[in-house]
């Protein structure tokens, strides 16, 4: 893992001290809210519906057990004993009090964490594949590159007041688990003639005008990465629209100017600034890479694991859904579900955080990851340790065997917390999960991603859900619109609107009809919901959603 240098530590301390004095001045009345608001947002502090909210960055989703313990301690000391893990590899605390926030930031600083650039019109927390460094399908670990980008972008003087927020995601695998095509810049590590470089994707994004990113360079040599990123962001900084907040994202810039024109400007700028990058960045990268050296994997038999699979059906079921292939023989990647049926997606109590930290320390080379799907990952676990891990997880309410299934729902905070929401998201997620658990068909239905947002900002990624749900306000009543066929992987697609929205009471039955229709329509059990949708299109699903329309037409 990357370790802070003395420079980093001093920088965070200084920054926290600055914010402490700003908070004091707000409380004693020397700063007005208008003056204070941009300052608090620069430090990840929002004011939400019922309380303040502190958003803490978990760069590229990577944590060690000590950091996770501190996240738990913060939840106990200054919040209500839990934290909310988000789709952008952050943790959000929903109940801090203003005067405590400087202490929270200091506690984070002690373990090399912070809340800088988790808000504001700047380059946000850089996200990466949550299986980085572990996945069997990986070309190279994307985290050193993500860390380099973080260092370059943190407090970068030119990029503190961009037209709008700016999000970068990196993956080192063929299978895109980082939703790179829905980011302002997506970077995919690729190989050409034995060398690794990047496919550079720009202009993806969700929100009001969802767009899939476009390839700007199909192969960018590694050593050109920072100057090229700098060229893209500075062209956007100049060209991006500041007249209209909703048109300020780079996706609109690329769309309005055309990929070719935008690309030409980037290349021009790149040629100009390339010589300024004399190789220090590459030396830094080499240093960072050594921090991310893989742990020493042990070679041992996996007999205990095989035995447990054979004798314990619950264990087998969990292993089938929650494990992924590791690149080292005898190892597995464990995804811990934060989606117990009926629970709030992404929430973990402090006790659960501590347990996950302890398991990582004891069995997982002290590493944890947070996924953009609001789950927690132990990236390096020897298979023989899995039975012990499973029973510990299960005892803590963390043993749900549902990764990738219908109850593994991403849901934004919605109107239960978020000041921008137009409807609630969490209760809808809770009810869907509970309903399909009661029906006992979750495993039969197989891979299916439901994603829910409480407004058009699309924090819950509904546009890229196989089934997307968007909460709206229709004349003072909560209403839910369904989109179908979205996909957040390397084959990224934006879902299609299925038709008129449903009331809060009607949405669960509608989802049930949709899933039942799929079970009827699929050609074989191995055909996933998304495959069936792609084969048959919207029509049969629409008919299932709106049976009365069909009856009326007949």
């Amino acid at each position, binding site marked *: 893992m990357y370790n802070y240098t003395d420079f980093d530590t001093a920088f965070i301390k200084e920054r926290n001290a600055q914010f402490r004095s700003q908070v004091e001045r707000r409380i004693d*009345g020397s700063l007005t*809210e208008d003056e204070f608001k941009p300052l608090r947002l620069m430090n990840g502090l929002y004011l939400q519906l019922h309380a303040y909210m502190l958003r803490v960055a978990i760069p590229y989703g990577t944590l060690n057990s000590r950091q996770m313990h501190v996240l738990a301690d913060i939840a106990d000391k200054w919040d209500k004993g839990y934290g909310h893990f988000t789709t952008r590899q952050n943790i959000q605390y929903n109940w801090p009090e203003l005067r405590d926030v400087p202490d929270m930031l200091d506690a984070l600083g002690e373990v090399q964490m912070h809340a800088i650039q988790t808000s504001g019109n700047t380059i946000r927390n850089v996200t990466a594949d949550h299986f980085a460094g572990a996945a069997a399908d990986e070309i190279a670990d994307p985290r050193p590159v993500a860390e380099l980008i973080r260092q370059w972008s943190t407090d970068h003087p030119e990029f503190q007041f961009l037209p709008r927020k700016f999000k970068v995601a990196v993956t080192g695998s063929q299978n895109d688990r980082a939703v790179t095509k829905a980011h302002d810049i997506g970077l995919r590590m690729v190989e050409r003639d034995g060398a690794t470089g990047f496919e550079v994707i720009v202009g993806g994004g969700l929100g009001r005008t969802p767009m899939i990113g476009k390839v700007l360079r199909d192969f960018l040599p590694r050593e050109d990465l920072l100057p090229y990123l700098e060229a893209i962001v500075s062209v956007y900084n100049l060209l991006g629209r500041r007249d209209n907040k909703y048109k300020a994202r780079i996706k609109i810039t690329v769309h309005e100017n055309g990929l070719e024109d935008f690309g030409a400007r980037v290349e021009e700028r790149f040629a100009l600034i390339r010589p300024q990058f004399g190789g220090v960045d590459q030396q830094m990268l080499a240093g960072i890479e050594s921090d991310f050296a893989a742990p020493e994997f042990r070679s041992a038999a996996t007999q205990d694991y095989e035995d447990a699979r054979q004798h314990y059906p619950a264990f087998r079921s969990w292993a089938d859904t929650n494990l992924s292939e590791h690149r080292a023989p005898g190892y597995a990647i464990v995804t811990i579900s934060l989606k117990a049926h009926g629970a709030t997606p992404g929430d973990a109590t402090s006790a659960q955080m501590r347990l996950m930290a302890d398991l990582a320390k004891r069995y997982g080379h002290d590493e944890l990851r947070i996924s953009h799907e609001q789950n927690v990952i132990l990236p390096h676990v020897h298979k023989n340790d899995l039975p012990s891990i499973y029973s510990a997880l299960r005892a803590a309410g963390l043993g749900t065997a549902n990764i990738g299934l219908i109850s593994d729902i991403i849901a934004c905070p919605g109107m239960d917390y978020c000041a921008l929401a137009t409807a609630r998201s969490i209760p809808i997620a809770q009810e869907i999960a509970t309903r399909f658990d009661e029906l006992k068909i979750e495993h039969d239905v197989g891979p299916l991603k439901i994603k829910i947002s409480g407004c058009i900002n699309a924090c819950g990624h509904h546009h890229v859900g196989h089934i997307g749900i968007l909460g709206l306000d229709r004349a003072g009543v909560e209403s839910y619109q369904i989109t179908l066929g979205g996909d957040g992987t390397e084959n990224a697609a934006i879902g299609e609107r299925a038709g008129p929205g449903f009331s809060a009471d009607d949405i669960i039955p509608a989802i049930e009809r949709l899933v039942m229709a799929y079970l009827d329509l699929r050609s074989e059990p191995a055909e996933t919901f998304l495959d069936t949708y792609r084969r048959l299109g919207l029509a049969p699903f629409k008919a299932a959603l709106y049976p009365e329309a069909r009856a009326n037409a007949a």
Partner: protein
Amino acid sequence: MPRAFTPKVVTANALLEGDVIYQTVSGWSRNLEEAEVLTDEADADLRLIDASQQQELVVGVYLADVDISGAAPKPTHFREDFRARGPSNYAHGKQEVKAHV
């Protein structure tokens, strides 16, 4: 024709805790039932200005519609309902406070 003025309360968040609060005749309360109901537009404007000037106490002041057909003011929109009540997934915030009285 100008639209008829509907009853309102002045609401905001508390500066220190972030809690949803309502202006009463003499100060602020966390309880909507104690809010001062404003039925006159000019009056409401004045109370809003007064509240907005209390920067050392409150953040984000605005007028919210209420239904006054019952004994105490009630929210007309579901957003204000959640603000008055707290989140629906946990008994936190106001619900928690009420559970302890």
